[in-house]
């Protein structure tokens, strides 16, 4: 079997605040298979960005990775020196962010910003670097590359900035691209263009970890999906299975909410209650106070990831075992 591009084992990342420890990512296990787009979906504050930042070693004080293993192509990313991490970031694994304006250097021409990673990791001459940078910018769909390379970020539109970000991330042909809400700040027509570009990159061999709160984005381009809630993975399955047979009540709630908007329903589906405060998580299953099917064991103990139906479909819910016997009704 081919090795996994990314493997996260029991990752725990916490923020040590004055009010106490906030467990932003809790026992997260996650894999990215080569040549696939793997999605993480969840509401704000569910730990999806923290998981991604933990991989990159970008968790800021007062947060830190408490325990867990992160393997990139079989090599450990945790417990390595800052210098080693630097040689991996941008070369083997790179990341693009939600807001392209704040992630680009405002006082540096975009061409130079794209070349930077090449000069650092590939030790190319300036001329060679400029040439490959131009090729990469062309590849991500930027026209008139020569002039655009001489632009500063503020001279470009949001869609172009995000393309520059993607070019920067892809310039050293990393094994893994982490995209944290790459299209959330963009307009719908540009969003569709960027998603199509990411799909092309994936077809060309880059594995992608895509973080999004938008089930539309996930449904359109992901191969495999993790659903997170309150710092934990609560369900994982390939995209078709997840959308056809969601097993966790939270996943169902999310899907119903997204689908009812497109139906003729007079009253839209919602999930009762609010996302719990990570400082004061309820006992037992974090979702139990909002769950319509909550039972006694849910209030006292946290369920493990249990198999549900299809192969590779895991769900953190006591009901999964029971559900297996009866056909899952489509919602």
């Amino acid at each position: 079997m081919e090795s996994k591009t990314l493997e996260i084992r029991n990752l725990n990342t916490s923020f040590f605040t004055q009010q106490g420890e906030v467990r932003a990512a809790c026992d997260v296990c996650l894999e990215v298979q080569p040549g696939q787009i793997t999605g993480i979906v969840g509401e704000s504050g569910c730990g999806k960005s923290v998981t991604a930042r933990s991989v990159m070693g970008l968790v800021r004080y007062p947060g830190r990775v408490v325990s867990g293993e992160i393997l990139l192509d079989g090599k450990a990313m945790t417990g390595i020196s800052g210098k080693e991490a630097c040689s991996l970031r941008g070369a083997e694994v790179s990341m693009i962010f939600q807001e392209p304006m704040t992630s680009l250097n405002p006082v540096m021409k975009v061409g130079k910003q794209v070349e930077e990673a090449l000069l650092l990791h590939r030790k190319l001459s300036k001329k060679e670097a400029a040439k490959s940078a131009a090729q990469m910018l062309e590849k991500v769909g930027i026209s008139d590359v020569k002039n655009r390379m001489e632009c500063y970020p503020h001279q470009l539109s949001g869609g172009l900035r995000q393309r520059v970000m993607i070019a920067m991330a892809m310039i050293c042909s990393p094994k893994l691209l982490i995209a944290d809400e790459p299209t959330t700040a963009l307009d719908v027509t540009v969003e569709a263009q960027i998603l199509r570009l990411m799909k092309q990159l994936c077809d060309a061999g880059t594995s992608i970890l895509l973080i999004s709160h938008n089930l539309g984005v996930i449904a359109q381009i992901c191969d495999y999906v993790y659903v997170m809630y309150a710092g934990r993975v609560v369900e994982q399955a390939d995209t078709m299975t997840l959308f056809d047979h969601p097993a966790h009540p939270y996943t169902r709630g999310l899907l119903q909410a997204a689908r009812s908007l497109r139906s003729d329903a007079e009253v839209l589906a919602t999930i009762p209650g609010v996302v719990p405060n990570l400082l004061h998580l309820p006992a037992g299953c974090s979702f139990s106070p909002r769950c319509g099917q909550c039972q006694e064991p849910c209030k006292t103990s946290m369920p493990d990831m249990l198999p549900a139906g299809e192969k590779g479909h895991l769900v953190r819910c006591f009901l999964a075992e029971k559900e297996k016997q009866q056909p899952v009704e489509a919602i």
Partner: protein
Amino acid sequence: MSGVLLEARNLTKEFPAGRKKKVHAVSDVSLQVFQGETLGLVGESGCGKSTLGRLMIRLLRPDSGALLVGGDDVTHLSEKEFRKYRRQLQLIFQDPYASLDPRLNVRDLIAEPLRTNHTCRTKEELTQRVLALMEDVGIPGEYLYRYPHQFSGGQRQRIGIARALAADPELIVCDEPVSALDVPVQNQILNLLKKLQKSRGLTYLFISHDLSVVRHISDRVCIMFLGTLCETGRVDDVYQNPQHPYTRYLMNAILVPDPHHRTDRIELLSGEIPSAVDPPSGCRFHTRCPYADDRCRREAPKMTDAGDGHLTACHYPLGNRPGDHS
């Protein structure tokens, strides 16, 4: 249909942008908002939808054109004369984190518009009104003395809605009220807005870039591109039978939350929105439009009615050509 509550006639608004340059934010836009309806206003960022929303309640003064509230021309009224209309026209903002004063508690936040309009005579009455409004928007009364930072995004948006309702308005301009929220919370707010509309007979001008949200909440919809309207009509007509090429591309770009309906092969709009500082001549969409010809480059199309109040500003409307989005 009931009467026209708010009408814009050829509104134009330009903002200075450096030496002799101007941002053409809204150009020659006419539209009517009927009593009791929800009019959706859709477009990509920078198309002028928020500017138009602000012009419609006279938070901005137009450079030319007229604004009519219930048939009265209010374009040139002084602030004092306009005050009685101001109460009727309220606004809900996009960012529930930035639009509430962090140093006021809920009671003061909601009481502010009540005080401005001298609605209540005693402190007791004021508190009662605030509590009633909190109940209407679903904020528990015991949170009366809490501050904005103690609430979630959805709850803050509810407080924003209560503030708008406090003035007892006829019309509320909702400027991207749910785009900062997660979907389940977004749905709660949309349900609340619908409920309030029913119980209070409100009229909404609902501004959003999210086509699915607009489809759900609106009766009629206006599609905007670069400061001009390109299509308006009843929601079902516009969504199922788009006449303007831009509208059809927008519909194509909707991300369906269903992996069985992937839109990998649907034709996408290339390029980006042209600059509003130097908008294209003629039809402003012609630089991105596959059907554009010389006439489009020369001459700006006028809004023409295809029947049933379905208006399109295009020289070559799509007619009943089957769209590639079903």
